[in-house]
C-alpha cells in the first residue's frame, strides 16, 4: 500500500495556478441537469433536458421576442425618488442605488416598442433582479405610460410580470400603483386594444392582484409561481403543508385563471399568431 500513501503533507498548488472554469459557463437546474450557458442562451434560456425555464430579465425577453432584437425603449430614465425617506435595517435609497449599480437597471421594469414577426407591439417587462421585481411608483408609472402609448398608437400591449408584489418601501404609494395600472388598463380595454399578460416565475402579491390578472389573455410560463399570498404566509395561516404543485402555472390553469401555458421557446410564434388572429 505504499503507493497509496501521500508523500507530501498538503496539496500545495498555489491558488494562482488553479485552473477553474470561468464563472457562469455552466448552469445547473433545480432538477440537476447541467447545461452550457451558450446552449442555454440559444434555447431561450430553457434547459433542453428538463424544460426548466431559467429566470431571465427584460434584456433577455426583448432579445427573444423583438424582431432583429430591435426596439425603442420608452421612459428609460425614470427612477425612484424615495418619497418617504424610508429606512428599515437599510435605507431605501441605499437599496435602490445598490440595485441600480448591481443590475445596470433603473428600476424593476423596462418598456420596449418594436415588432414581433412584423406585428407592432409594446412590451413592458419586469426585472426580478431589481429589489425582487417589486412595484413602486416607477413600475406603476412606466406601465401607465406604456398604456398611454398603446392607446395613442393603437398598438397591442404585453406585460411580462415577474415580481414578489408591491414595494413596501414606498408604502401607500406602491399600493396605489395597483389602482393606477388597473384603471388605466380599463381605458385600454374600452378602446378594444388587446392586452396580453404573461406571468413568469414568480408573479404574486400586488402585481398579480392588479395588471397581471387583467389580460384579455392571461398566459404563463410553465412551472411559474403565481398567486396572491406567498406560499409561506398561506402555510402559516392554515397550519399545514401545501399540496404539491400548489400555486404553480399548471394549478392556476386548472382552476381557470389562465388561457394557456406557453413554453418560452414557442412564445414568440404563439404571440404573433394570436396577434394575427385578432387582427384578421
Amino acid at each position, binding site marked *: 500500500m505504499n503507493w497509496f500513501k501521500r508523500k507530501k503533507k498538503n496539496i500545495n498548488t498555489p491558488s494562482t495556478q488553479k485552473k477553474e472554469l470561468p464563472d457562469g459557463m455552466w448552469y445547473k437546474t433545480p432538477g440537476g441537469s447541467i447545461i452550457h450557458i451558450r446552449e442555454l442562451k440559444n434555447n431561450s434560456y430553457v434547459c433542453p433536458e428538463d424544460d426548466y425555464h431559467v429566470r431571465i430579465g427584460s434584456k433577455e425577453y426583448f432579445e427573444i421576442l423583438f424582431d432583429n432584437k430591435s426596439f425603442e425603449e420608452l421612459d428609460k430614465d425614470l427612477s425612484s425618488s424615495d418619497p418617504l425617506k424610508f429606512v*428599515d435595517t437599510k435605507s431605501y435609497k441605499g437599496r435602490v442605488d445598490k440595485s441600480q449599480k448591481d443590475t445596470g437597471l433603473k428600476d424593476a421594469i423596462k418598456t420596449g416598442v418594436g415588432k414581433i414577426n412584423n406585428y407592432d407591439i409594446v412590451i413592458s417587462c419586469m426585472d426580478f433582479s431589481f429589489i425582487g421585481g417589486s412595484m413602486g411608483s416607477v413600475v*406603476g408609472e412606466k406601465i401607465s405610460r406604456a398604456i398611454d402609448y398603446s392607446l395613442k398608437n393603437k398598438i397591442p400591449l404585453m406585460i411580462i410580470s415577474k415580481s414578489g408584489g408591491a414595494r413596501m418601501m414606498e408604502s*401607500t404609494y406602491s399600493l396605489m400603483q*395597483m389602482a393606477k395600472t388597473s*384603471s388605466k388598463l380599463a381605458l385600454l380595454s374600452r378602446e378594444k386594444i388587446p392586452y396580453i399578460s404573461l406571468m413568469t416565475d414568480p408573479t404574486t402579491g400586488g402585481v398579480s392582484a392588479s395588471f397581471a390578472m387583467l389580460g384579455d389573455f392571461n398566459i404563463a410560463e410553465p412551472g411559474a409561481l403565481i398567486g396572491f399570498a406567498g406560499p409561506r404566509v398561506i402555510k402559516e395561516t392554515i397550519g399545514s403543508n401545501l399540496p404539491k404543485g*400548489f400555486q404553480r402555472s399548471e394549478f392556476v390553469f386548472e382552476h381557470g385563471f389562465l388561457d394557456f401555458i406557453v413554453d418560452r421557446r414557442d412564445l414568440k410564434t404563439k404571440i404573433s399568431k394570436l396577434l394575427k388572429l385578432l387582427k384578421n
Partner: protein
Amino acid sequence: MSLDFEKPIIDLETRLMQMKEIASKKGKNLSKEALLLEEKIINLKKEVFENLTRWQKVQLSRHPKRPYFLDYIYKISTEFIEIHGDRVARDDKAMVGGIAEIDGKSIVLIGQQKGRNTKDRQFRNFGMSNPDGYRKALRIMKIAEKFNKPIVTLIDTPGAYPGLEAEERGQAEAIARNIQEMSMLKVPVICIVIGEGASGGALGIGLGDKVFMMEYTWYSVISPESCSSILWRSWDYKEQAAEALQLTANDLKKMNLIDGIIKEPLGGAHNDVDFAANKLKKVILSEIEKLEKIDPEKRILDRVEKFSLMGVTKND
C-alpha cells in the same frame, strides 16, 4: 378591553363615575373636586390623543370596541336591506353589502365586517374576505350601477384572506377585477377607511371618486407587523415599521393620496359612536351631492386620472 395609553384616562373616568354615583345617592351636587377631575380628564385625553404615535393610531383602528361596518349602517340609515352571495359559489360573511336609505336617499353600501366576540369573529373571518367576498361586492356594485344608485364602501380589513381555497378560487384575480371594474362604474363611488386599510384586501373595494379616512385609521401596502417581520426579520419592530410606512390619515392626506379626513370624537370613534356616525353621514351625503352634479363620463375619466397621478418618480 382598553389600550395601554387609554388606561390612565379610564382610571380617572372610573373615579369620576364613582364620585357622581355617591353624589347622586346623597342627593348632593357634584363636589368641586369632581368638577376639577372632569376638567383633568379632558385635558389628559387631549394630551394623549394629540400626541399619538403612528403605532398607537394603528392600535386604535383595531380597538375591540371600535364601531364596525354594520354599527355605522344602523346609526346612519333608516332602512337597510342586506343582499347576499356572489352568484358563483358562496356568500362571504366578511363582506357585507346592501341598499340603505340615508336621509331619504337610497345608497348602496358595501364593506368588510369584523366580529365582536370569538364566535362572531370566526363567522366574519376577522374581516378577511375570500375571492367570493370581492365578487359579491362587485355584483352589488353592478346592481347600484344598473339602478343608478351611488356607492359607498367602508373599508375595514386586516387583509384579504391568505388561505388555500382563496388561492384556488383566484384571490388575485378577484381583487384585480374589482379595482378595474370600479374605475369604470357609471355611478358616484366614495370609499372611506373606517378601521384597517390593509393592502390589496382594502383596495379591492377602494377605488372611488373620493377616498376618505377616519381620523384613527391606517391604509398601506402592508401591516406594520408584517413589514417588521419581512424587513427587520423580527416581529418586534412594528412601531418603527409604522413610523417608516407613514400610514395614518394625516400622512396620506399630506401625500395627497386621500381627499380628506373624517374627524373622530376625542378618544376615538368608540368613545362616542353617534358623533363618529354623524360625521360619517355628513361627509357621505355632501360628497354624493357634489359628485352627482358631474357628468358620468367625466366622473369616470376624473377617477382614472386621480389614481394615475399617484406616485413619485424622477428623471435621472
